[in-house]
């Protein structure tokens, strides 16, 4: 049905002064005209949805569409320290990846919608805003510290997050990332970006699963929506 994916490196902006660092991307790339940038969810949800996203990309490959799934600096295979990453840096990274891979469409997944480059048409799949992402991660820390017999309040955790950064559910969130997430709204859905909700895709939301799971029917549905739209416009 489809070829294998490859890992390639791409130059990701590193700070604001024009430096770049090498980050990895998983690609199905045969130099075709239709090219989809997949922006992964943030933090733990990226792990839960990776299988689904790679399966979607494999299906698109079979429909003559190239797709690229870049690592966010500090996540997945990246060697950059997560604690030093910022939302602004991640946005610049995804914009650079869109240019480098000559993406013609974007699929932003969950919190990935916060990083969607302006001016690129595509889809937000069940987008999640920054406050909601933080709320759940701070709550996880509250439950874990209570369980460990060293209870903390949300106020204490938030104050520490803003001042010096904090580990939430094993993820090192720096102060700039923390405060940016507190205010990060999903960018507006203009005509060229459509909202894909779980009802459209069907099945159970995979990001909710306590253990990562996979559902081929959801991969079929996502790929079908994207392939039909991208081929129509071609």
């Amino acid at each position: 049905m489809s070829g294998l994916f490859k890992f390639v490196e791409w130059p990701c902006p590193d700070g604001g002064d024009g430096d770049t660092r090498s980050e990895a991307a998983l690609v199905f790339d045969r130099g075709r005209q239709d090219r989809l940038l997949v922006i992964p969810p943030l933090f733990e949800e990226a792990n839960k949805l990776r299988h689904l996203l790679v399966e979607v990309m494999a299906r698109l490959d079979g429909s003559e569409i190239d797709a690229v799934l870049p690592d966010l600096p500090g996540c997945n295979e990246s060697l950059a320290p997560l604690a030093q990453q910022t939302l602004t840096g991640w946005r610049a990274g995804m914009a650079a990846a869109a240019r480098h891979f000559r993406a013609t469409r974007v699929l932003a997944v969950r919190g990935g919608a916060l990083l969607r480059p302006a001016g690129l048409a595509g889809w937000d799949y069940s987008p999640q805003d920054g406050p909601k992402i933080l709320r759940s991660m701070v709550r996880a820390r509250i439950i874990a510290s209570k369980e460990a017999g060293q209870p903390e309040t949300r106020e204490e955790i938030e104050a520490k997050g803003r001042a010096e950064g904090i580990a939430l559910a094993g993820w090192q969130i720096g102060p700039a990332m923390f405060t940016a997430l507190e205010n990060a709204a999903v960018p507006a859905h203009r005509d060229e970006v459509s909202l894909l909700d779980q009802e459209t895709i069907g099945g159970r939301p995979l990001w909710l699963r306590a253990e990562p799971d996979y559902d081929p029917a959801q991969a079929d549905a996502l790929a079908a929506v994207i392939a039909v739209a991208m081929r129509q416009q071609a």
Partner: protein
Amino acid sequence: MTAQTSTPTDPAGPSRTEIDQKLRAILRDVLGLSEARASDLAPDSGLFGHLPELDSQAVADLLTEMEDRFDIIIEDDEVDGDHLETYGGLLALAEAKTATS
């Protein structure tokens, strides 16, 4: 927490059956249960501390999903160990919150 009526038309909020069904659906999604196993959840079915996959992040996501689907806000100090330990505890939390919201 006060006792609630089971009348479906209770103006104080959704019926107990409705809350119970919604909560089972959330746990089905979180734990990947079949419909049958989700229906089998009993008040004393163990959750946090009994199911290894239900770690603190999974429980936090579960509470956040409850907020979304029930349209409630669960304050951190409203949740104690008893609410999370069993299905009955979690259901009591959902009932208390939907009655007051």
